[in-house]
């Protein structure tokens, strides 16, 4: 029995068959349940753990069909169209799946139907023997439509108890009374409408698997096999006129563990040596080496993301690759070794707040460098610093009250005498983001008065007063926000 905390009270979330037999129901408080039956075994609810487990099961079910979707919180939906004959029929496939799951100690119920909603409904609500699937569905109670509580109650009040009752009425009347959702749900259930299934893993562009008759214990051999697979994937991509942006190689160990290795490229690639170089780079960067243990029994290479790529011809003499590609290869290698967020490219962002005026995006994913707006008048000293502190660092400043320029400031325990300054450049907060459109308030931030200052030794800084004296802050603080060249 599992409990969770709902509005301050511990309530029963899910129960096993024995608990249900005792007359306990979900939603009951734990105290009530204990009063009835003191010897309860109680566990805390762990929705994230459950979700994790379900996702792992879903990934495992890709052995039956590539289109396996989650039906949270407790279900999986497999689209076995065109897959069943490989296992010798629908029933055999279902039996195999149920056996496999029961081996993990799980209670499993299954149903086969023409639509995902139909299977969901038949699995959860017992339908008696019926002539065919449609008849079985029509006999189910209206709760299977998964409508909101009010609609379900309203349907029952109107005397519509089963799906069949509902299907006999004209759709327009139902829509007028119980909403569009009811009609849609009914259509989906009976296979009139069609809602596509969202598989957990999108279908990769290219997918290549190698199973070994015996587990292989040599990583070098596994990598050679992977290279052959990469060449095969490259051919597949060439046929489509595409190149892969992401590659995923999974090493399945015979004891059930799997090592996924993912590499990403900034330009489409389909050249096996290039892919292998990146994979090798990733393996070198692993904290624990690729351990074959009792041997790998399967390798899988997938290309989840591909982009159009024109066939290229090497230059006639020497086969020199184009310059952009050389740079892209360097970015890929460094990004894989150091981490994809560590090689960055700066992009302008349309904001007047200095720290939001640029975005540092991973160079792997942001290919085309955006155009940077340059300063209005060329040849003027820069109005923005070269280095920006985020967050700004507080400094002690001697300045005229209320809004005079700074005279000297202390930063990092050194006193700087200001001999030249320019300012203030007043940067207002984003007042339109303030709550209730209020001009004054914490949420929008404070007005900043920026000064470009130069000290006696020629060092140039960007400092600002945070808040207007008196109106926004009683004692505005000063901060250093950047260093000029």
């Amino acid at each position, binding site marked *: 029995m599992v409990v969770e905390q709902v509005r301050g009270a511990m309530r029963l979330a899910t129960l096993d068959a024995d608990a249900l037999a005792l007359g306990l129901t979900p939603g009951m408080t734990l105290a009530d349940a204990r009063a009835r039956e003191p010897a309860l075994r109680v566990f805390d609810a762990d929705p994230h753990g459950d979700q994790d487990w379900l996702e792992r099961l879903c990934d495992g079910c890709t052995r039956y069909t590539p289109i396996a979707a989650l039906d949270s919180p407790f279900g999986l939906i497999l689209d076995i169209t065109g897959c069943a004959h490989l296992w010798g029929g629908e029933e055999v496939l279902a039996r195999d799946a149920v056996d496999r799951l029961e081996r993990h100690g799980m209670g499993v119920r299954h149903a086969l139907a023409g639509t995902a909603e139909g299977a969901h409904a038949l699995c959860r609500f017992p339908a008696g023997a019926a002539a065919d699937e449609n008849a079985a569905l029509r006999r189910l109670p209206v709760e299977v439509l998964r409508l909101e509580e009010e609609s379900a109650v309203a349907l029952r009040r109107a005397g519509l108890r089963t799906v069949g009752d509902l299907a006999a009425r004209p759709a327009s009347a139902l829509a007028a009374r119980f909403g569009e959702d009811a009609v849609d749900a009914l259509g989906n259930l009976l296979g009139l409408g069609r809602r596509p299934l969202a598989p957990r893993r999108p279908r990769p562009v290219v997918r290549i698997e190698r199973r070994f008759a015996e587990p292989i214990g040599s990583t070098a051999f596994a990598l050679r096999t992977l290279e052959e697979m990469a060449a095969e994937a490259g051919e597949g991509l060439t046929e489509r006129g595409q190149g892969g942006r992401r590659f995923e190689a999974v090493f399945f160990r015979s004891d059930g563990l799997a090592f996924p290795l993912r590499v990403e490229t900034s330009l489409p690639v389909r050249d096996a040596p290039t892919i292998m170089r990146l994979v090798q780079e990733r393996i070198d960067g692993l904290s624990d080496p690729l351990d074959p243990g009792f041997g790998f029994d399967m390798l899988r290479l997938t290309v989840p993301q591909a982009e159009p790529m024109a066939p290229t011809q090497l230059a006639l003499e020497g086969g020199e690759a184009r310059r952009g590609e050389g740079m892209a290869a360097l970015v890929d290698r460094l990004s894989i070794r150091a981490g994809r967020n560590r090689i960055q490219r700066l992009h302008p962002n349309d904001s007047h707040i200095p720290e939001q005026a640029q975005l540092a995006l991973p160079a792997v994913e942001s290919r085309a460098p955006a155009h940077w707006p340059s300063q209005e008048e060329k040849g003027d000293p820069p109005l923005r610093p*070269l280095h920006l502190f985020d967050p700004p660092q507080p400094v002690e400043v001697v300045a005229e009250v209320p809004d005079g320029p700074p005279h000297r400031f202390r930063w990092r325990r050194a006193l700087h005498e200001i001999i030249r300054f320019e300012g203030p450049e007043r940067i207002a907060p984003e007042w339109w983001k303030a709550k209730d459109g209020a001009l004054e308030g914490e949420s929008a931030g404070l007005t900043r008065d920026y000064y470009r200052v130069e000290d006696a030794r020629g060092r140039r800084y960007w400092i600002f007063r945070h808040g207007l004296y008196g109106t926004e802050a009683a004692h505005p603080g000063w901060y250093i926000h950047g260093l000029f060249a």
Partner: protein
Amino acid sequence: MIESVTTLAALRRRIASLERIPAGQAVPRVATGHVQLDRALGGGLSRGRLHELFGSIEDEGAAAGLALGFAQLLAGEQPLLWLRTAAAERAGGMAYGPGLAALGMAPDRLLIGVMTEEAMLLRAAVDALRCPALGALMIELRGRAPLLDLTASRRLALAAEGSGVTAVILRIGGEPVPSAADTRWQVRAAPSIPLPGNAPGMSAFDLSLLRQRAGPDGFHWRLTWDSGRSSFAKADEEARDERHDHGQDSAGGYGQAALSGAVVPLSADRSASDRAA
């Protein structure tokens, strides 16, 4: 006497045959725009070599600005990679695109690599220097940087010579140690020429040429960046072009002790490749 001359000539020929780049062939150079500086360097900064810039922590902004200026000129239209450590980014602030654009430097051609540690940074630097598609590489190191010893800097120099990619090594708060750099500089912020209203003007730098492998050193100049031309201004009225003795230069915290051991025993105009060969 005649014998020794012939021996010398034979020795010269032998050395020339060992050189990857023949001594007679000029190294491509990029002019900085400052007339006296370019003249002292024989035409500008050499391409495919290492250039080391030293700046104190207080002069960080100026040192980074000058290093970026050099790297930008050396990279030309090709991309520029700036490698730094995460600690440096935390302490010194992150690179700011609008500021770069305001200086006339192209932030769209700039890639920034923020590495977790120095060892990884130097490994990435060697890899980057081997890639001829890169225009220039800027390596920022803070503090003593014990990993950048003579061996490490030779490795960088070899990679740079092989591909023709120039490396600008920015050392914040570091002390010069023997290295394979072609030139070595000390940077300090200099008071700018004020605009009307006593506002700070264009970025100015006090620059000392501490060492040059193939030529005279010990010069001091004041450079001003010209954001309109994206280059350094021709010359400044205040520019001092007289030669100084190292020991007399007491303006900064730079002592003479560091210099005496700093010169690598390599002959003029010789590449580092034959040392490794």
